[in-house]
């Protein structure tokens, strides 16, 4: 399967990645060669095979609903590039 440049641009938008024009063209070639290679899986009939989502038999693990000591607000927000009053600060999201 071959990938079009418009698809790369669409996927980049979905992934919130800014991709330059020249880079997008190179990505098309690179992804094409990878997609051609992974197309090899189509040789296998997997109609009756269950997908593996987790490598070992997973059991839901719960814990008692008890309050544990966690990180403080300062510890969590302290790493943000911009912060105020214990909250993350971002550029304006909505129009006035």
């Amino acid at each position, binding site marked *: 399967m071959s990938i079009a440049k418009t698809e790369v641009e669409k996927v980049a938008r979905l992934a919130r990645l800014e991709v330059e024009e020249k880079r997008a063209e190179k990505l098309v070639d690179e992804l094409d060669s990878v997609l051609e290679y992974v197309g090899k899986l189509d040789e296998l009939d997997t109609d009756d095979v*269950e997908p593996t989502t987790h*490598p*070992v038999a997973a059991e839901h693990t719960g814990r008692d609903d008890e309050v544990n000591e966690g990180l403080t607000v300062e510890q969590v927000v302290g790493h943000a590039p911009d912060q105020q009053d214990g909250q993350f600060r971002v550029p304006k999201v909505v129009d006035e």
Partner: protein
Amino acid sequence: MSRDILKELRAGEISSLEVIDAIIEAAQDDVFNAFVSLVDPSELREQARGADRAREAGEARPLEGWPVAIKDNICTRNLTTTAGSKILEDFESPYEATAVQRLRDAGAIVVGKTNLDEFGMGSSSETSHIGPVRNPADPDRVAGGSSGGSAAALAAELALGALGSDTGGSVRQPASHCGVVGLKPTYGRVSRNGLIAYASSLDQIGPMASTVEGCARLFDAIAGHDDRDATSLAVEPAGPGCADVLSEGVDGMTVGLPEEYLGEASRLDPQVRSRVEAAIEALEEAGAETTSVSLPHTEYAVATYYLIATAEASSNLARYDGVRFGRRAEDADDLAELYKKSRAEGFGDEVKRRIILGTYVLSAGYYEAYYEKAQKVRTLIRRDFESAFEEVDALVAPVAPTPAWTLGEKRDDPLEMYLEDIFTTSANLAGIPAMSVPSGTTDQGLPVGTQLLGPALSEPVLFRLAQKIFEQCNDEASGRG
């Protein structure tokens, strides 16, 4: 420093302070670019003195005074954790990874954070934001990856133990290329709490050391259930730890030789083949029986791996948005632009490539054809191993098709780089343990490792086999012994 340094430490023949001083001096130049950051020398000396006091008082813990290096995608307090990425270049974790905490509790001294491929995405440790790691056996060659800094630090004797992480071979392949021991544990055996996620259903933290015994002692210290990792296994295998079974030998064990890894079709470098064959002979001489087995879906492992790994990566790396931590782009007019610019500036090419591929294979219209297909083939790969382990206790295979290559050689062809993982990705897909054991060197002096794979929770078996290979294939051959 000699390889017996761990024994000498325990016996009190050498002090922790002497060991630390030697490391501080040797690490100053860091000619192999093995470290992203180093702990302040005065702090290291203070901890070493503490270890020496504990030993004198007869209160030494299992890893008392061991200098260990931690891959820089594993969170540590009071040191940056960059994952080799510009987007996290100043990031200081507010908490410590469980595996690191357990090493400290066992007495180990963290000396620094090691260089890696950005977010663990690579097979050569060339994509880090601080530049490539060099192989101590030949500085013009790659150290392997993505835990190349940890492997190089051990080979250059800048640490006696290390942690790496292995998503598709990232502990085993650099261990092979640098001539050290590395284990990818059973999925869930070591807590992933504090490991920066790349592909969560494949990632495992793994111990690395210059010797099999050192690797076993590190594993014994870090393995075990952790409430902070929902995928952590609740089972605790009975019996002694891995370090205590090394001398039990391999007499009576049956070891499988997978045709797909060792046959003509595997395109194995002749010198790699000869070292792996030497390892097989060593096991036979020690009393193990060998038999041929087949893992028919081996040739599909790399394709399956790159679909699943990139899909999971595209989701995991969505958290780097320039808002909560890490680098933020300047001059963004609105929030959408802030995300796009921060991510474009912060991520390197290989990471972007994998995010794009992963987003593509998860997107509407392609999910079934790529992602779900890969999950189904993952089941077939898992079943291959289940059948094989009905017949044999473990498998012997190469780690990588070639020895370490020249820096820059494969950087422009992502697919060629991905194919380097042909022998290692299956273990991650199946969730089984696998390790790399040094098995001598090529004529050019490049290290070659042999891979051992076993069923879930068979780490003690792998360590016993590894010990035999290590004893037989290194003493006379490598000159480092």
